[in-house]
């Protein structure tokens, strides 16, 4: 049945049109973000060549280094070269350690990615669950409890919540490891145990926002005429809730998820520090203090790429949920 709908020519052309519109939006955004990345990092006052040449560097040596790094080229050319290499997976080499940036990032980014994804999953589960529960019986005890919990979750800064959790679980109640990271190669169970606290910390506020968002939009939907009509016709509350109201009301909550992806990635950086995780945050901060530009550019680029992918996914989901909505 679904397949028949899917290969409907009208549906296909609608999808193509959507894809075209998305493309038109995304490519410029991607290009501009990379341009901002490049601009902020590469065009800043930079004395890397002088630093590397050291105390005994002559002007000629510095000029040679500048040429080797390509600093003497006009900036559009540098931008294009950099982007071209990046798209081929070559993010350059660290100025100081000579380690390829792609290697360093590949070793560390999975940590942040795992936290962000794990947190996202928890946030979606808790958020949608909570929002649904709250909306199913508006102003009931459950609803008020969830709303209050949500406000609390939003008020506490995540890094303070994280520190509190670390204090409790590292110092007082030694239930499971509060800090540190174990690679999945060493066992999924161990990995998950180390992931719980950081992901929970990141997920809590997002879950609260999703729950709040979902509750509002579902309550709005519940006021609509079609719901009254369905009730009159004898459909069960549950069926109405899940089959119609949720589908129609989920869009803003889904959009929220997309909106907070950059925050989740950024939050992972702070979580790294508190939970002692070997992610790109530590790499990036070290590189920032050393003005190790290729590393910073690589980190920014990868983060932006992840955000763009997530936005694309969210947009696709939204398009499926609300096919009639036009986006400008």
């Amino acid at each position, binding site marked *: 049945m679904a397949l028949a709908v899917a290969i409907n020519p009208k549906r296909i052309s609608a999808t193509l049109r959507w894809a075209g519109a998305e493309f038109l939006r995304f490519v410029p955004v991607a290009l501009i973000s990379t341009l901002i990345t490049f601009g902020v990092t590469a065009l800043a006052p930079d004395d890397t060549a002088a630093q590397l040449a050291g105390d005994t560097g002559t002007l000629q040596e510095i000029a040679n280094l500048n040429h080797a790094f390509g600093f003497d080229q006009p900036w559009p050319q540098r931008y294009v070269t950099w982007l071209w290499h990046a798209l081929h997976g070559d993010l350059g080499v660290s100025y100081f350690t000579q380690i390829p940036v792609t290697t360093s990032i590949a070793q560390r980014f999975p940590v942040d990615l795992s936290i962000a994804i794990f947190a996202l999953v928890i946030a979606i589960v808790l958020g949608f669950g909570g929002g649904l529960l709250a909306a199913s019986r508006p102003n009931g005890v459950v609803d008020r409890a969830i709303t209050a919990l949500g406000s609390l979750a939003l008020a506490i*800064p995540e890094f303070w919540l994280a*520190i509190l959790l*670390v*204090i409790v679980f590292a*110092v007082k109640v030694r239930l499971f490891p509060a800090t540190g990271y174990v690679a999945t190669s060493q066992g999924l169970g161990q990995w998950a145990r180390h992931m719980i606290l950081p992901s929970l910390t990141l997920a809590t*506020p997002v879950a609260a926002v999703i729950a709040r968002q979902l509750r509002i939009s579902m309550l709005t939907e519940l006021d609509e005429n079609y719901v009254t009509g369905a009730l009159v016709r004898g459909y069960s509350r549950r069926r109405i809730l899940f089959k119609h109201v949720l589908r129609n009301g989920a869009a803003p909550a889904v959009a929220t998820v997309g909106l907070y992806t950059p925050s989740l*990635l950024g939050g992972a950086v702070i979580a790294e520090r508190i939970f002692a995780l070997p992610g790109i945050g530590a790499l990036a901060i070290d590189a*920032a203090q050393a003005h190790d530009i290729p590393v910073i550019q690589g*980190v920014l680029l990868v983060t932006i790429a992840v955000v763009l992918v997530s936005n694309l996914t969210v947009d696709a989901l939204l398009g499926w949920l609300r096919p009639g909505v036009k986006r400008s």
Partner: protein
Amino acid sequence: MKAVLVKPLELIGRALPTTYLRIAAGIVAFMLLVGALGSLIAPYDALAQDSAHTFAGPSWSHLMGTDFLGRDTLSRLIVGARPSLFSAVVAVVIGLVGGAIPGMASVLFSRRVEFVVMRFVDALMTIPPIVFAIAIVAGFGNGLPEAVVAIGVLMIPRFFRVVRAETLKHASAQYVEAATLFGASKPYVLRRHVWRKAVPTLGVVSASALGYAVLGISGLAFLGLGEIAPQPSWGSMLSDDLTYLYQAPWAAMWPGVAISLTVWALNALSDAAHTGLVREAEVPVGTESEAPETQDVGSVEPALQYV
């Protein structure tokens, strides 16, 4: 300018019937006052070390105890209020100026320019603020101005979109149409009529943006970006407390409470003003606009504590 301030104040006053909200407003005012007075009201010099009395718990001589170098925590909290709060204010101003003016002007753009500007704003939204701040520090050095600029620039999108939405909404009002028919130029109309209508929403967004900025600046300070030792700031104090967790497990409470209270209060005020505006405006819910999260007047994201 007073006329501009009256409307939001009225709204807040009307929307602050409860003690809850009055407490929130009081907290914000208190924090700002502490920040302004700074070392004038601190019981000790925030930098004075006392190696004989480190990690002291709360006592009559040190109400909040001392830190790892014997410095009075309360004094550091007080002196640290200014960099934590006022830099957030500057960041919000950057976002506001950078976002509101182009946002309003965007209705005057040709379709092409509008497209590019919108994509630029979208691009700003794809960059996580922390990573952006790290990049700015990498390029321009570590310091409070760099951190503030980083946070401020990435707040431009929220101001831009809200003001643009408001402008679009009000620009199609009948009296605007009438004015244009009478020969008024578009910029004049915007300045004279639309701006005043958009200001209340700006107030709401600014309040929540301020909460966001406080969290952002503190988060960066926590990571060591934006504040130079030994000057205290709430975020850097939190970082130190983490290092000395085993010597003083509960010391992290103080800066954490300071930040949480401030952010909660700003959020509460922003929510209240928002509710006030909604009641005022009676705009049908579910207005179509680019941002699906915009369900009602203005897109007010709660000050989420991520950066």
